[in-house]
């Protein structure tokens, strides 16, 4: 029984489930390292999921779908940046408003464009990559995710850009006095998080469901933020946490059919998220000026 749960198949499924979370959590790392809390990631993922289907549906090319997903996420992030960095509005208020907007907008447009309530027509997913010598196939988005994680770990901790971004999150006043354009750095962090969150949403609709369903992110943007905290605001740590959440989700799918009411199985990721948040406090320290608007 235990053996069958922790089979290779479950691990593979866990890896797949961790991809959308990892993209969003990575986005959270860029945004929060620069000092901007981005709870709009939930809405960003949702518009990404919608954009991916929209682009793929009209062009028949899922790579264009990915581009649309990234640009939709980017646009929501741009609003978040303007509202919370330029106008210095509370970042939670801005993020919450954008989440409401994303829910309304995607449902509104989906009904308008696809003339159907609930979900879009089914689409062809991405072509999977076959690796010679190994049975099974690989999702291109998973490969992109791994590249992004490794690249980001390098960018954030080993490049001048990363150092400056972190400075803006740790002490924007010191960064400013050293001639760093805090506003611009923060914009960059939020906008990158928008594009990445959009990719995370795209995985949900393009790879996982192959259809856009209204409200299909079901809290994954928030779960990704919890994973980012658990991963101590680092790309590799966040991925590790996302894999744990992916594992929980893969086990959840396995548990369905064991006679436990589905509703209780559905609660598992949310309960784990709360436990993780309680468990890591004191050991995970956020950037000092995370969430604090910067004013010269």
């Amino acid at each position, binding site marked *: 029984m235990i053996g069958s749960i922790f089979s290779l198949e479950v691990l593979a499924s866990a890896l797949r489930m961790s991809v959308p979370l990892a993209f969003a959590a990575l986005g959270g790392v860029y945004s929060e390292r620069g000092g901007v809390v981005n709870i709009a990631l939930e809405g960003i993922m949702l518009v990404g999921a919608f954009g991916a289907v929209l682009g793929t549906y009209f062009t028949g090319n899922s790579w264009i779908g990915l581009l649309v997903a990234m640009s939709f996420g980017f646009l929501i992030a741009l609003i978040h940046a303007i509202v919370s960095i330029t106008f210095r509005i509370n970042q939670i208020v*801005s993020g919450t408003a*954008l989440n409401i907007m994303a829910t309304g907008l995607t449902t*509104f447009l989906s009904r308008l464009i696809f003339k159907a309530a609930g979900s879009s027509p089914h689409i062809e997913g991405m072509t999977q990559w076959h690796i010679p010598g190994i049975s099974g196939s690989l999702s291109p988005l998973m490969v992109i995710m791994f590249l992004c994680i490794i690249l980001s770990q390098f960018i954030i901790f080993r490049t001048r850009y990363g150092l400056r971004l972190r400075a803006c999150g740790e002490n924007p006043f010191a960064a400013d006095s050293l001639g760093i354009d805090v506003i611009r750095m923060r914009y960059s962090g939020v906008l990158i998080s928008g594009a990445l969150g959009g990719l995370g949403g795209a995985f949900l609709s393009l790879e996982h469901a192959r259809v856009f369903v209204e409200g299909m992110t079901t*809290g994954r943007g928030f779960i990704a933020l919890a994973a980012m905290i658990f991963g101590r605001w680092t790309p590799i740590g966040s991925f590790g946490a996302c894999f744990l959440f992916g594992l929980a989700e893969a086990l959840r799918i396995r548990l369905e059919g064991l006679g436990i009411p589905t509703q209780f199985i559905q609660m598992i990721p949310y309960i784990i998220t709360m436990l993780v948040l*309680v468990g890591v*406090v004191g050991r995970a320290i956020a950037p000092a000026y995370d969430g604090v608007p910067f004013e010269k």
Partner: protein
Amino acid sequence: MTRRTIISILAPLLAVILAFLVGAVVIVFLGQNPFYVYRVLFSNSITNIDGWGYVLFNATPFIFSGLAVALAFKGGLFNIGVEGQIYMGAFAAAWIGITVNLHPILEIPLALIFGMLIGGLWGFIPGILKARFGAHEVINTIMLNFIAMALTNYLVNNPFKEQGQINPIPQTKELYSGAIIPRVYPLFNRLGIKMSPSVPLNYTFFLALAFCFLTWYLLERSRWGYEIKAVGLNPKASRYGGIKPEFIIVLTMFLSGALGGLGGINDVMGYRYRFLDGFSHGIGFTGIAVALLGKSNPIGIIFASILFGILDRGALAMDVFTNTPRELIQVIQAIIIIFVAIGNELIFRLLIRLERERE
């Protein structure tokens, strides 16, 4: 009226107008006539008594959810979990209504108090997690929304499902008559205001007004209210003032959750007389817009709730009579939140500049 009060009324008004202008651009973009769409939106709600009845009926739950968010705001906390508190409180009240059969004088308060307690519990959990462990309430309240929806979905589909009926949406059986909050049309008709019996406006609306007063009293006239606001402004300073911020955080979240727990009463005890799965459809999130637009002030919350009640009522007509999906209202709502927040900030900066110039 001081200049400050005038500005604080004008700013949200301007934000609402701007949000509608953005909405109009969207409608034009869709190739439709914004004047026509907006006429449909408003003409069905505010041009006759019955329309107003529906508007106030729609506004009632928003008053509760708006108060819940506002109370947490005052304590420096974000209660994004009102949606979950609504489901939990509504189910608790419905549970009393289907299990206990008493005289309304006893049963209605019993159901309300139980609803507040369970809603309060749903606020207490993120409160204690924040006070004891420093876990951020934003993510926890959101997680509890999903848990509450799954839990009530289970309860209404399994142990409490109405037997011998096939319903499109799962629901409990009907409440005992003792738990039913009556409609107001007989009262209005006696007062000479002609309201049709089909209008669902009920006494929950007056209960909501009473809770506006109670919240105002709590915040402005009581010691707890003073301490909540002190912690909201500066938890460290409040500690030097002899306040225990940890206790106040838990208390604020509990009271906020209790107010949220009443957000479903209008539907459960005043309209359908049963708990319907997923009935809320975002009342808790509208509460965030209501609290911001009403500047966390109970009177402001009443007006903001009425505005969103109008939009809600009009959205239905818009869906039926125009080709614009009703979700446009949700988009306008989000734009209102952003514009109000920006407007408040800009005016705040303006006031500071004016005061500096005066000095």
